[in-house]
């Protein structure tokens, strides 16, 4: 234990995890409107309006063009990079009627049956995907 933590070292380590975006304050700030847009889909009326004209609905929010384009093509890895958080993005999964596991599989290099099969066999091993720099 130390008396004072180095916040920069704490945050810096998060970039060393392969295939993972930790939802830091910086991402929370970057993705604020994106996540609030996704949150709005909790309401049935908003879901209907979004489904009727996705582009027009997205234009009502303070989103960048990159965010809007990533929502339209359901590119969840791009949305994570733009500050999206999966619990908020999951409102899009449910609007689309896609299961959480299926939506999650689109962020991996597997199709859904292959991903589901991996989960049924015990999931992805942490071996080799703990740290980029230590290759472990």
């Amino acid at each position: 234990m130390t008396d004072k933590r180095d916040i920069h070292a704490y945050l810096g380590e998060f970039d060393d995890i392969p295939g993972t975006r930790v939802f830091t304050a910086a991402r929370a700030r970057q993705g604020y409107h994106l996540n609030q847009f996704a949150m709005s889909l909790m309401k049935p009326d908003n879901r209907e309006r979004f489904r009727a004209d996705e582009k027009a609905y997205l234009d009502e929010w303070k989103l960048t063009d990159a965010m809007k384009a990533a929502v339209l093509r359901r590119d969840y890895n791009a949305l994570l990079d733009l500050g999206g958080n999966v619990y908020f993005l999951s409102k899009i999964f449910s609007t689309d009627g896609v299961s959480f596991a299926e939506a999650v599989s689109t962020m991996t290099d597997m199709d859904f049956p292959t991903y589901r099969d991996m989960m049924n066999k015990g999931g992805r091993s942490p071996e080799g995907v703990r740290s980029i720099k230590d290759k472990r």
Partner: protein
Amino acid sequence: MARITAGVATSHVPLLGVAADQGKAGDEYFAPIFAGYEWSREWIARNLPDVIVLVYNDHASAFDMKIIPTFAIGCGESYAPADEGWGPREVPDVEGHPDLAWHIAQSLILDEFDMTIINEMDVDHGLTVPLTMMFGAPDKWPCKVIPLAVNVVTYPPPSGNRCWALGEAIARAVDSFAEDLDVQIWGTGGMSHQLQGPRAGLINREWDNMFLDKLCGTSDDLRHIPHIEYLRETGSEGIEMVMWLIMRGALGRETRALHRHYHVPCSNTAIGHLVLEPVDGTVPPSPRIEGNSPAAQAMIE
């Protein structure tokens, strides 16, 4: 006097709520998961508490990005199941215990845990799925519930050390409540899972079982695990396990495991479940000895 009689830890995967609500708990996929709760359902029917302090996290249901409380305690009279985007679960409303909740809130603040107090909110699967796993589908939940919500979504969440110390402070708060009540504390979420990015689907059976092992007995090793270890070893959402440490901290110096269950997978997640009881009934000492000491307040390496 009120007392903490037991601790329960359980995952709170939303799919389990769906399975229970749609009558699929006996299906081949779900049966081994629900089978691990049969012992617990019989046990809790015989050991029904008056109140459960239920530690969970909200998943963008009651709280959005507008307000992010680190620790929030529900002091309201009742809580409705949240509409998480496909209509609310058809389960009973959750009845609170405002007298005990306000007492705990006051006691925690005097113990230097600056709680957010919630009087009205809906509760999502993080809170209702554990009730379903432990009680099945009654017309009315058989005891009162004090929701205790923890931010484990936006970094940094509270440290494991802080969570453990909060549990200790909850035990002191319960101990100083005048009414004769049996109180259980539940820690929910976990175990290993990652719901995002190319590394999604990560499961770490070995690490999860180490964590289950160390919740039993006198060890307090778990309070010193840093966030980065949860992230590397248990996936981006495995950090929910810090909420189990609030439960563990409230059980005092030593615990005994009455029941243990582990199953992979449920959707993207490893299911873990423990029933613990305190061994010696010791109430954790004042924060001036533990929670507030330089060692306990120091940041974890």
